[in-house]
């Protein structure tokens, strides 16, 4: 962090007077806006990066590695939504390697009158600079929020190899009676308006003790999931990036699953009502999510084909993308409906004042241990029943069973010792990966065949494209079969005595707590 100073009762001219007396030159003041950009879940911040768009004279994107001397600047005229909006090069690739499938969003915009003060050595080289930010304001901040931020700040900007000059500037500003600030401008501004620079957390895990009352624990878990649904709603409706829908969809499905596990805790009418409602909501999120996965993974999807086939499938990609957009539009229409808003509001209202169920006083540890044991029994029973000739639906059902078990570990994860839980979940995840890949290949195969039929009927496809679609379809079928063949081995690796012992140990710990 750049050493930052201010003073609530003294004017900013103190900075200029202090530093000019020591030979600093001062630039003219320029009204500047600084927009901080990051993904919704704060990936840049978590990677130690800060991206800002500065508008004064020239417009520049500035990418700073926090705590490092070096920064990157790119002349650019507008807020990029994706790194791919920027020209090819290291600036873009550094951003893309961190943001991946998430869009860049403007988190907050600060405005200030900025003057630069620079100290030059006898060669005319800047050895230390300071940026004085006066009349600081934050876009859309209310009066109380704005009052929390100093009206002016000065940041000392050291130059590599000239630490002594920076230290001298810091000493002079301190000696002039200015107060060192705990953070730099961006961090102070973000705090004053309640913008979390570390991003929004969609984790399903809430802190719980095994001895907590079951109803309160369920309520906290479900309220956390409701928060996740709410915070991802706007981004899903706007189709800002695929992760909004993914997070929303998973939170809806977790909600439904937790409701199902609350048989002894929640009243039947509440469980039935909201399981149905969230079930319907979950269903409408399915097609756009499946298409998101296909479009996002297009390069990998066609990678087994030769370049000519891959190129001829471009029309298919465009068609899939159009289907994806249409599916998102349908979903947005549903999410915008008053009935959806009413559902979420009523759900919130119930969560804040829940009905008393039958087992509300039972400790959550015992309830979760029982539910996990039951879910595991079902996974084992259903998995053992699958033979090489069993229909695909049986694998699909097992996939759903495994998901329900996984959701329990995720939503009530804080009840378990992290190390043992992780060891068990790793085994479960290996099984889920196989079932998931099998299901993805099934879905993609069905989508591709449906698309081929439709394009053929429309007469909008030539023979080369159909042949390439056929070859892709063969490949998907082989992939599906490969996962199917792999299943038995994966399941045997999961269905072991050792894994059973790990699970019993986990359940023992929470049930007896």
């Amino acid at each position: 962090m750049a050493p930052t100073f201010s003073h609530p009762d003294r004017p900013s001219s103190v900075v200029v007077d202090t530093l000019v007396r020591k030979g600093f030159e001062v630039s003219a003041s320029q009204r500047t806006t600084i927009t901080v950009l990051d993904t919704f879940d704060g990936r840049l911040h978590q990677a130690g990066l800060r991206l800002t768009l500065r508008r004064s004279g020239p417009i520049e994107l500035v990418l700073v590695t926090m705590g490092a001397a070096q920064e990157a600047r790119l002349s650019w005229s507008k807020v990029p939504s994706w790194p791919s909006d920027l020209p090819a090069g290291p600036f873009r690739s550094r951003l893309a390697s961190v943001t991946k499938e998430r869009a860049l969003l403007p988190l907050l915009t600060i405005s200030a009158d900025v003057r630069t003060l620079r100290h030059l050595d006898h060669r005319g080289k800047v050895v230390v600079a300071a940026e004085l930010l006066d009349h600081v304001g934050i876009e859309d901040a209310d009066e109380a929020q704005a009052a929390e931020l100093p009206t002016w700040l000065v940041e000392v900007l050291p130059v590599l190899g000239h630490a002594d000059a920076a230290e001298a500037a810091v000493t002079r500003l301190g000696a002039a009676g200015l107060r060192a600030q705990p953070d730099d401008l961006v961090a102070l501004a973000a705090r004053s308006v309640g913008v979390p620079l570390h991003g929004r957390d969609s984790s399903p895990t809430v802190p719980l003790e095994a001895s907590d009352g079951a109803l309160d624990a369920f309520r906290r878990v479900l309220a956390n999931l409701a928060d996740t649904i709410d915070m991802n709603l706007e981004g899903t409706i706007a189709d800002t990036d695929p992760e909004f829908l993914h997070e929303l969809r998973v939170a809806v499905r977790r909600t439904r699953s937790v409701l199902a596990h609350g048989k002894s805790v929640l009243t039947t009418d509440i469980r039935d009502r909201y399981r149905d409602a969230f079930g319907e909501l979950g269903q409408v999120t399915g097609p756009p999510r499946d298409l998101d996965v296909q479009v996002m993974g297009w390069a990998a999807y066609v990678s087994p084909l030769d370049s000519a086939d891959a190129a001829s499938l471009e029309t298919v990609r465009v068609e899939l993308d159009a289907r994806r957009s249409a599916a998102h539009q349908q979903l947005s229409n549903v999410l915008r409906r008053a009935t959806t808003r009413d559902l979420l509001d009523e759900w919130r209202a119930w969560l804040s004042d829940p009905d008393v169920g039958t087992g509300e006083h039972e400790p959550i540890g015992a309830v979760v241990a029982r539910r996990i044991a039951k879910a595991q029994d079902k996974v084992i029973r259903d998995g053992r029943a699958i033979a090489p000739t069993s229909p695909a639906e049986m694998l699909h059902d097992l996939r759903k069973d495994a998901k329900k078990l996984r959701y329990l570990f995720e939503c009530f994860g804080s009840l378990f010792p992290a190390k043992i839980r992780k060891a068990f979940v790793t085994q479960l995840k290996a099984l889920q990966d196989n079932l998931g890949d099998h299901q993805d290949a099934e879905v993609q195969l069905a989508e591709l065949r449906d698309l081929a039929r439709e394009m053929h009927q429309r007469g909008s496809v030539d023979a080369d494209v159909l042949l390439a679609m056929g070859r892709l379809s063969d490949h998907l079928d082989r992939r599906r079969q490969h996962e199917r063949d792999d299943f038995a081995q994966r399941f045997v690796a999961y269905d072991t005595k050792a894994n059973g012992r790990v699970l019993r140990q986990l359940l023992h710990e929470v049930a007896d707590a």
Partner: protein
Amino acid sequence: MKVVATYSIKGGVGKTSTAVNLAFEAARTGSRVLVWDLDPQGAATYLFRVRPKVRGGSKRLVGSGGELAGHIRGAGLSSVHVVPADFSLRHLDLHLDGTKRPMARLAGLLDPLREDYDLALLDCPPSISLASESVFGAADALLVPVVPATLASRTLGQLERFLDGDADAPTVLPFLSMVDRRRKLHRQLVDDLTAEWPRLLPTAVPAAAVIERMGVERAPVGAFARSSVAARVYRDLWAEVAAVLWPED
């Protein structure tokens, strides 16, 4: 980090002005740039207004305990840092010869900085020597200024033959430098060189007074004459080099 060396066996062909101006352009277009001045004359060091001092001299710098990080200085230009040169670099060959793997030594010194910079620009002295070979071992690309002179083609040919057969050799990116289109001989030689070396980058750097003024301004052309033809030419040249280093995804 990509490593690019401005290199030529010939002297006075525009290596340093190219290194300094491309460092400026690379920084302006989003790269974190480290300029390593390897020329004992220290012209790049001078142009960036950095003190010409290699602490401990080139022997300590390239010796077994040497490292670059402690020698890096801010250039007073945003996003550009410099490892300065001093006269001790005249013995660079000798000092490299005293190391275990001289050809890999410069690459070894750059390795710890790979995450900190996107581009290292090595401004080389004119020669073909052990230091040059160590540069070839470190560089992804050699940016070779070719002046319109009768011996220029021969010099470029010598370099190509020297690197021929080395699978790890850097990509050679020759470009025309110090071209005066008012002179008939230059026009003729440019045509001949372009025909003989189709791999010449499309942009030719002109012989221009504004480039000579860099010594007075002690700054890249883009910093003091942004709208000049020379500034535009360096922008174009950098775009061509960047397209080779970071092809469109």
